[in-house]
């Protein structure tokens, strides 16, 4: 059911089309897309990220067991 408080007379002009996004939003969107693309390229070229990326085995964050325990190099043996 239509809201009676917003009903318009038939002779009344139609509502104006909504304004598009302002220029700052468009510029912001372009910058964000550029930054995301740059980050993706860096991640693909660098082979991972994070503080453990210099450790043997690559990104510690991605490869660590769920309990956070990292065995010493060469294992416990």
């Amino acid at each position, binding site marked *: 059911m239509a*809201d009676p408080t917003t009903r318009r007379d038939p002779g009344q002009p139609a509502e104006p089309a909504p*304004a598009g996004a302002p220029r700052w939003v468009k510029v912001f969107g372009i910058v964000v897309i550029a930054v995301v693309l740059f980050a993706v390229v860096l991640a693909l070229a660098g082979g991972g990220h994070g*503080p453990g990326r210099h*450790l043997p085995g690559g990104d510690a*964050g991605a490869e660590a067991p769920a309990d956070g325990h990292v065995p010493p190099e060469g294992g416990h043996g």
Partner: protein
Amino acid sequence: VTMSAGVRKLALAIHLTVSVGWIGAVVAYLALGVTAATSDDADTIRGAWLAMEAMGWFAIVPLALAALVTGLVMSLGTRWGLVRHYWVLISFGLTLFATVVLVLHMPSVTVAADIARTADLAGLQALGGDLAHPGIGLVVLLVVQVLNVYKPRGMTRYGQRRQRSGASRVEVAGERVGA
């Protein structure tokens, strides 16, 4: 839902405190990261990593979650709304993004801190300093801060529809009162 003036001021005070506190905590974390990346002293690097882990879990993560929740409360409880103005929507999106990345990143900081407890100087220096995540995060938080202070103009299509329907209701109500 619109908050009363007193509740709104309290919510705003909490939101400002935790948001600015989050930025300050990230700056302190970066200082420790730089120390970890540049020091030649094993105890200093080890101490920096242990402090970074504690600061991350016990200060930065709680501040981030508090900023996210209070930002949501502030937007939904005031005339700004969450999706009516571009600056609010973008600000919330960036805050959510920063919080998610932070929570996903912290386990790797814990792993690095665990390694730092027993590693020798070469192992400690191999850890680096974790500068990229907090550095980018700080830039994101500063963008959010600028948006929140300047509140640049621009309403979403939803916001424009809500504004028009609100104006129509006021117009109709005025006609009824005048009749």
